[in-house]
């Protein structure tokens, strides 16, 4: 982190890829302009950054790349507001501002020697992709037990990172389950909502951590399934979203109880969330 945490570094948008069929989610690949910037940007899966579209503003997005992928950062962003819209329309080669990395990360130290079940829905898959990619890296794979990924979207066209998912299908180091909400032509994998698919797959909770990210309705119905499978609140992690500005725990916007989601989160265990007001 540089001396003045409000000043972004400049990075180059090298790829602006339409990620989903509905064209509402793009993946931006940003390139570091120099080694020093990259050196200073040491991050872990689960952290986020504030992206500046100059002329429009700044907004926080989870980092979709893993630190094992040098030279670049990727963000998959839904087009919902002023900044995300400006980013979607941005020409490749344009310079953007990046502040970060910010926030805490998935507790990879705790995960060591354990199995990890990653459950994601919709476009909340970004930092989960970072997490899976990190654990799958040759240097790290040996540190973890079985890695299971249950990932769903409304239809096949809305799944993120389709090429990578195809690779993972054939990778013996990871057990990938993909599902869509309703049957679709050409789709041969699971059909059904995440909670019921999770119940079907029934991952063992023995020596296992679960990481769950997705729309509120998905999380609400997945948690009871995990409980039934004997996952404890201490062994389930999620990542919160809140409106943010400074990202430094000062501007007050993302405050929930005693916590600031930007600096104390965004990753929380269900046990931690039980202690906080339900205000997210």
């Amino acid at each position, binding site marked *: 982190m540089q*001396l003045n*945490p409000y000043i972004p570094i400049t990075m180059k948008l090298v790829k602006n890829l339409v990620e989903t069929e509905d064209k509402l989610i793009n993946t931006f690949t940003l390139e570091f302009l120099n080694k020093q910037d990259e050196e200073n940007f040491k991050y872990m899966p689960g952290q986020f950054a504030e992206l500046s579209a100059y002329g429009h*503003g700044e907004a926080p997005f989870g980092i979709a790349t893993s630190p094992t992928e040098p030279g670049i950062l990727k963000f998959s962003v839904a087009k919902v507001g002023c900044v995300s819209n400006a980013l979607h329309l941005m020409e490749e080669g344009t310079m953007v501002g990046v502040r970060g990395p910010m926030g805490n990360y998935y507790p990879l130290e705790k995960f060591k020697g354990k199995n990890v079940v990653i459950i994601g829905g919709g476009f909340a898959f970004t930092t989960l992709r970072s997490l899976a990619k990190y654990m799958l890296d040759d240097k790290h794979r040996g540190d973890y037990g079985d890695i299971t990924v249950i990932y769903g979207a409304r239809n096949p066209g809305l799944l993120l990172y389709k090429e990578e998912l195809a690779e993972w299908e054939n990778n013996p180091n990871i057990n990938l389950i993909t599902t869509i909400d309703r049957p679709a032509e050409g789709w041969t994998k699971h059909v059904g909502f995440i909670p019921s698919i999770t119940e079907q797959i029934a991952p063992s909770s023995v020596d296992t951590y679960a990481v769950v990210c997705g729309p*509120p309705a998905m999380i609400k119905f997945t948690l009871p399934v995990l409980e039934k499978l004997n996952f404890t609140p201490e062994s389930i992690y999620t990542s919160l979203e809140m409106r943010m*500005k400074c990202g430094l*725990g000062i501007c007050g916007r993302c405050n929930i109880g005693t916590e600031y989601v930007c*600096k104390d989160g965004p990753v929380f265990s269900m046990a931690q969330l039980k202690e906080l007001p339900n205000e997210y």
Partner: protein
Amino acid sequence: MKISKEKFGQAFDALVAEYQIIAPVSDANGIAFKGVKSFSEVKQDYLNSKLPPKAFFFPQHEKLMSYKKEGKDVTVKSELKVDNTVLFGIRPCDAKGMQLLDMVFKNDQYTDPYYFERRDKSVIIGVACNKIAPTCFCSSFGLSPAGSEGSDIFLIDLGDSYDVEVITEKGKAVAARFEELSELSADEQALVDKIKDAETSSKVDVSTTTSKLDKMFNNPYWDTLQEKCIGCNVCSFSCPTCHCFDISEEVRKNEGTRVRTWDACMAPLFTLHGSGHNPRDNKKARWRQRMMHKFNYFVHNNGSMSCVGCGRCIKGCPVNMDIRQVIDGANKAELVVE
């Protein structure tokens, strides 16, 4: 020790060469802290300013950086030029308020360079309150109208002279210019003791408030207490410890500035997500947040309440919400099973 106002005025005027001096003056809106060039401009008989002096460290509108776009390229510039500053006539509640803001602008991970550049380059000359307003309630928080906490130099107005207490090293550098200091007479000492012993007549018992609020997040107390609030935010903007801000961009053609401006947790858009979801989408939730933050969350995080009893929110409220009553109501509220 005391210094005559004549000698103090001379030292004050001499400081102008090296410091920007901010002091209370009388203007169209009442009392305001503004830049002055001479002690003769300073209003000496005043209760307190309408707006707290926090704006000199945390301006209502402040440039964080500027940028220029050329084609696909961008150049980013940030400069922060801060003059050495003396803030004169700061009341004890506001001096304490700045100490509380220090805890916000520096946390376990980050230090806000804009705030602390100004803070580090400023000297606070506090002046005790000889008169106390009916809305003052600083004594509720273990503070007092003559408390020197947060001041670098602390003065008590004795009419023709000031009782002087030099508190910090920064204060010493300024006090070195004070000439012809002398001992207080017995009568003056008696007056100093009287002012130091004074308490605000209005007080609210906060001894159990934090622990009570621990158990009150879902209490029906919040349902009705805020009904008359019109959400104007005057309470936040006039509060010496409120610190929430927005960051936005001011753009003209290919150039722009990133600015931060005061914001408030009482504003409906404060927590609105891009998706349209809003975790605090009603006044009840926002009032609860304001009270919880000041009297519970802040205490758990920083060991102190985030209120100094200055009474500005009470004076300024257009619908007569009174934070003392809100605290009192919480103290007395019946607990329900959460």
